[in-house]
């Protein structure tokens, strides 16, 4: 099997210290995970790539019990404040219930395998786990 790994999305950076990256507006510091022609905050057109902190605090969450076919439920979807940058992701490695997941809890980025495709390439996903 090939050892090739591909990130689930292009803003996940793999390697020894997996982390997320964002396009940051050099004018106002607004951060975007997708590409923008101009900054939605200040209309600036210069961006640079910046790493996002891998530790954060849960600012909002929900426990999804009903989802589209093919999506395993229940799962915890959350907004995590990573040192001032908000990140969307699931919370894993904990029971998906309101006794185990709470607002303000500290979490850290983690990665996991989504399996291999026909060529042997392995997709790597990310989520947050209790810190």
């Amino acid at each position, binding site marked *: 099997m090939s050892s090739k790994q591909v990130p689930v999305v292009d803003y996940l950076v793999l390697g020894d210290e997996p982390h997320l990256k964002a396009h940051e507006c050099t004018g106002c510091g607004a951060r975007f995970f997708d590409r923008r022609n101009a*900054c939605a905050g200040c209309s600036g057109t210069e961006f640079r790539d910046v790493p996002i902190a891998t530790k954060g605090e849960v600012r909002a969450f929900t426990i999804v019990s009903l989802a*589209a076919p093919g999506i395993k439920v229940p799962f915890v979807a959350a907004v995590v404040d990573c040192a001032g940058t908000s990140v969307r992701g699931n919370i894993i490695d904990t029971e998906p219930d309101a006794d185990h997941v709470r607002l303000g809890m500290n979490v850290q980025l983690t990665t996991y395998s989504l399996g291999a495709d026909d060529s042997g390439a392995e997709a790597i*996903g990310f989520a947050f786990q209790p810190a």
Partner: protein
Amino acid sequence: MAADDIWILGIHMTKFGKHTDRDTVDLAAEAAMAALADGGVSIKQMGVLAAGNLMAANAGIGQQLQKQIGQTGIPVYNVANACATGATALRTAIMAVKAGECDMGLAVGVEKLSGAGLLGGGGRPKSAATNWTPSGRYGAVTPVDGLIGTDTMPGVFAQVGMEYGHRYGGTSFELFARISEKNHAHSTLNPLAAYQKRFTLEEIMNEPMIAYPNTRAMCSANCDGAAAAVVVSGAKLKTLGPDQQRRAVKVSASVLTTDPWEEACQILPDVNTLTRNAARQAYEQAGVSPEDLDLVELHDCFATAELVHYDNLMLCPEGGAVDFFNSGATWRDGSTPVNVSGGLESKGHPIAATGIANIWEVCNHLRGEAGPRQIEGATVGLAHVIGLGSACGVHILERAAA
């Protein structure tokens, strides 16, 4: 009445619910013809038609409606603006009259949504990918709904309410369920509501969980329905009959906003800032303050959403929505009755109809025609809708001076 004021001359909403034997055109036609009749006017007097039907936004519902009730050759604007589609249609007609292009206009919103199920989430192919190929704006190798957060509406709005709780404290599953309890209780007085069943708090909390803390009873009801309104200029209204003038409702403010950029709005839609901006503009336009409101119809697409809009519409001090609700203020006998129609959770949410149906509810009270659910002596009310993406419509309405 000032010549350049805008008034609602006629307005109607159909019964919300399951209309198996009627299509969108039938429902839109019922609402439009009844709104015209309510205003004592005909389609021939309309100078503009603005129409919305979100789920078939490319079908030209405006022209379809004309073929059903009268092809008079007037300009048609087919609008689509998520859950704010109805409010956008109304505002489009208002702008045309305000601009002096015509003195009367018709706005219609219609949706067939019964059995639509879960909105917003994307499915995943049953079989595993044969090739992890990045695609789309995030270079995703597989659909990410459910892998990286949730796209489902109940889940998105659950987080909106939870975020408010994180910021200000005081929220709980039970608190959100109590908001739903209020709206379902209110719905028992509204014969046009899709559901008129009163639930106990326990029943609401024991309903199937959709996205914590929203159970099924705390989600807006997918259903069919239409609503329509006739707007008229103050100058034209002066030439109409005494009954038309007496029943006309003044549009004291008509505002549409989108969300300005805020940190995190790319992660979780910010439904707060644009609502607050719209409310602020509306109060200023109307020259009224939140304390003046006799009733409010706000966008309770989920119980978790209603809470944050108490604050966004400035019905309470900033951060004070939980205390405000716990005081009983938003029950129909409270100081600021909210969603006496039953709200989207029980009246139902046929998307494009909602932004006119909530105006119909307010008008009914201002005219003193709301029957058993009348808020006595109502003189000013506010209607609010929000569509993700985002768009927010706020209208403030006032009873005609006697």
